[in-house]
C-alpha cells in the first residue's frame, strides 16, 4: 500500500472524526435558548464595541521575521541531506549562506526588532 493512499485514508478519517463528533453533539445534546446565551463571554459583562479592530503590529513583525528565516531554513534542507557526500566544500559554500543569515539576525537584534514593544 502506498504512502499516498495512507495519506488519503488518514485525511478522510480526520474528516469523519470531526463530522461524527459534531453530529453527535448537535443531534443528541439537550438545547435551551435564552437571549443572553449566544452573546460573547467577557467575564459576565457585556462587551464594549466590537472585537474586530485593528490590532497591534508587533505580532505581525515577528511573522515577517519568521517568514524570512523559515524560507532560508527550507533552502538548507537539500544541502543537509547531501551533506555527507558534499563534505568540506559543501560546508564552505553553505557557510557563506549561513553567515548572511546570522548577519541578518545580528542586525535585527541590534536594531531592536527582536524586542517586544
Amino acid at each position, binding site marked *: 500500500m502506498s504512502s499516498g493512499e495512507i495519506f488519503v485514508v488518514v485525511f478522510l478519517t480526520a474528516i469523519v472524526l470531526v463530522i461524527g463528533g459534531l453530529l453527535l453533539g448537535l443531534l443528541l445534546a439537550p438545547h435551551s435558548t435564552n437571549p*443572553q446565551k449566544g*452573546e460573547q463571554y467577557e467575564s459576565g459583562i457585556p462587551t464594549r464595541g466590537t472585537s474586530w479592530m485593528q490590532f497591534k503590529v508587533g505580532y505581525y513583525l515577528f511573522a515577517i521575521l519568521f517568514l524570512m528565516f523559515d524560507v532560508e531554513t527550507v533552502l538548507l534542507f537539500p544541502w543537509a541531506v547531501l551533506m555527507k557526500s558534499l563534505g568540506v566544500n559543501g560546508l564552505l559554500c553553505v557557510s557563506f549562506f549561513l553567515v548572511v543569515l546570522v548577519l541578518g539576525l545580528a542586525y535585527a537584534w541590534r536594531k531592536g526588532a527582536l524586542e517586544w514593544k
Partner: protein
Amino acid sequence: MEVKNLRVKSMKNEDFNNNDYLEKYVEELHKGGVNVAIGVLDDVINWGRSHSVWPLTFATSCCGIEFMCVGAARADFARFGWEVTRNSPRQADVIFVAGTIVYKMAPVLKRLYDQMAEPKYVIAIGGCAISGGPFKDSYNVVQGVDKIIPVDVYVPGCPSRPNAMLYGMMQMERKIKLESFFKLPKKPIITKEEEIRAQIDEESKDVKTSK
C-alpha cells in the same frame, strides 16, 4: 434508575440527606413509563456525566477560599474527576455559587448561567448563596440565588468546610445519575425576558454603530 440502586463509591444511600426528595423526583420522571433501552442508555450516559462535572471558576467571597481548599492538596476534588475547572462558562457543567451575590453581581451571575451549555447545574454554597445568610438584612444582597437562577444542591455553612462541599458534590452526582438525559432540559428558567431582550438589542446597535 431507582434511588435504591444509586451507588456512590464508599458511601451508603442512608448516609445522604434528603433522599425523599430524590424519590419524589424519580417518581415524577417515571410517570410516563420508562423505555428499557433508553433507560439503559440513560444509565450509561449519566454515569459519564455524573463523574465528570467540571465547575466554573466562580467565587465571590469567603466560600471561594474554601472552594480553593477543595481544589488544593488536602481535600483534592480531583479524586472525583471534578478538578478541570473551566474559566469559560461555555465549557463548564456546574456553577458553584460560592459567596454573597449582591444586586450588582446578580445580572452577571445570571448572564454566566445563561451562557453555560446544557446540561448545567448550580450548587449554592454557604449561607449567603442559600438565603442571604449573614446579610439577610442588607439593602444590597440577593436573598438567595434561587431568586435568579435554579439551584440544584444547597450546601450550608459559613463558609462550608471543604469536605462539606465534597459531600454536596456527591449529592449532585446522585441527582445527575437519576436524571433522564433525553428529557433534558426541563428546569424552569427564571428570566425577565423582555428586559434582557431589550438590553441586548440596544447593545447590538452599539456594535453596529461603532463599526
